[in-house]
């Protein structure tokens, strides 16, 4: 890989260990994946924030980076943590977890990384078309590439952090135009109507596509909140980095994947592991947009959440503030609008949750594995019916 004189100095350690180790990570990944040089990035988004997910392992590394002078060179944002410190329900958690989580967020902040603590950083600042990014969080990667035409590989926590410190990423993969073409055609013949249907479609396609980029035809709506569910799910059951929508001009030389009603029905059946009623109804994976919170408020207005059910609506602090009128409606009904975390990355069992109901296919896929809870997967409307008294 070609390095500028300045990059070589960093590689040789002239700016200290934090920058040297970051540069070594980027150069080695570049060598492995055939990059010829580093390119500047507009922003980095860093995963590996929730103490529930990462545990103690990264704390020592983050502290060593900070102590050797590591500070970010570009705008850098963070994925959700395990706790909303402004919400009293999290005080039920053991003190050790609360303290460790705070230590992690503080380490990132001291390196100059924003405590945005959301998987939807694009609502706070949408990336510009054609900008190179170094983003972790697979649902944000597929959204940035597909909806904003920003350019990012599927980074992991450590590589996104290294890019944030250097301000650059190795030029390979989705940073090259030739790797952003679709290589599979999807023809949706199933009736895909709700956001949950889009999520189920995503789970089905991710398994077949692996890491390929599809061109998807036959979708009736291009509602961005629905596409967010589809993308997050494709990046969950597969590692799809990007999708296109529209009709193919030619269909030669491409595999055609046809999706029928029964394929979607199978996903619903596989994702629902619970027959009993939920003790938590969770909306907000990925974190809710302003429009989603508005829809929830309109569905719940004048109704009451059942006394034995919790309703969590998860979003960023930024969106919660913008949605304050709708937040009041949801809270008046007995729901909670929670920031900085979500059901997947907090300690659900410690908070007394056994059965979760959600409209997110991604959560329905992960929660039984990572949170050991049972899941009911259905539409937002069904979720609201289950949450509220008649």
């Amino acid at each position, binding site marked *: 890989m070609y390095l500028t004189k300045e990059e070589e100095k960093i590689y040789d350690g002239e700016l200290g260990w934090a920058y040297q*180790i970051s540069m*070594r*990570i980027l150069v*080695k*990944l570049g060598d*492995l994946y055939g990059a010829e040089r580093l390119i500047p990035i507009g922003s980095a988004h860093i*995963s*590996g924030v929730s103490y529930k*997910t*990462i*545990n*103690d*392992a*990264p704390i*020592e*590394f983050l502290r060593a980076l900070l102590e050797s002078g590591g500070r970010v060179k570009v705008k850098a944002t963070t994925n959700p943590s395990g706790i909303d410190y402004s919400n009293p329900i999290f005080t039920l958690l053991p003190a050790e977890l609360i303290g460790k989580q705070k230590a992690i967020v503080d380490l990132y902040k001291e390196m100059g990384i924003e405590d945005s603590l959301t998987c939807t950083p694009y609502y706070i600042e949408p990336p510009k078309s054609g900008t190179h990014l170094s983003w*972790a969080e697979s649902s944000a990667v597929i959204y940035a590439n597909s909806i904003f035409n920003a350019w990012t590989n599927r980074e*992991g*926590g*450590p*590589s996104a952090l*290294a890019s944030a410190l250097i301000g650059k990423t190795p030029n390979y993969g989705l940073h090259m135009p030739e790797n952003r073409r679709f290589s599979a055609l999807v023809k949706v013949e199933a009736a895909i109507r709700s956001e949950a249907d889009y999520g189920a479609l995503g789970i089905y396609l991710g398994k077949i596509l692996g890491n390929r980029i599809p061109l998807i035809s036959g979708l009736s709506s291009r509602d961005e909140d629905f596409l967010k569910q589809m993308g997050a799910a494709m990046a969950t059951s597969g590692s799809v980095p990007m999708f296109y929508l529209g009709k193919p001009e030619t269909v030669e030389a491409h595999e055609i994947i046809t999706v029928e009603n029964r394929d979607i029905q199978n996903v619903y059946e596989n994702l629902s592991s619970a027959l009993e009623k939920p003790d938590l109804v969770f909306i907000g994976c990925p974190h809710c947009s302003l429009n989603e919170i508005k829809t929830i408020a309109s569905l719940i207005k004048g109704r009451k959440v059942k006394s034995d059910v919790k309703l969590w609506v998860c979003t960023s602090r930024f969106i919660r503030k913008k949605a304050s009128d709708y937040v009041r409606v949801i809270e008046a009904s007995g729901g909670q609008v929670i920031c900085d975390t979500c059901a997947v990355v907090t300690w659900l069992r410690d908070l007394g949750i056994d059965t979760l109901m959600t409209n997110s296919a991604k959560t329905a896929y992960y929660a039984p594995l990572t949170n050991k809870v049972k899941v009911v997967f259905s539409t937002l409307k069904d979720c609201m019916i289950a949450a509220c008294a008649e």
Partner: protein
Amino acid sequence: MEVLLKGRPIVPGIAKGTALVSTKPISFLGGVDPETGVVIEREHDLYGKSIKDSILCFPSGHGSTVGSFVLYSLARRGLAPRAIVNSVADSVVVVGAIIANIPMVDEIDITKINTGEVVEVDGGSGIIRIFRK
């Protein structure tokens, strides 16, 4: 008898030790206990074995990118392998080996190495020497 294998250099450094060979991919997050260096994934063929000071040979890494940090924590506690030999390097293990400063080579046919053999890994040249009796 000495057997030489040539792979791709990933992380420089020379290390000699006893080979611990697995036929299964390793996820360091959830697969290895960062407090003890013991493999804790029940389905794994190295389940219950310590990777400390070994020449750890396995096909590839998989799983969460947090796995890189687990290798760093193991190294800080003196529980890391002396070297890593992979069939195909995966970015989680590569980043982990870089930050933990563990010599690493890939593109090696690891079926040619047996657990218990004394092996020397040169992460700078990609050469692996197996010392057979």
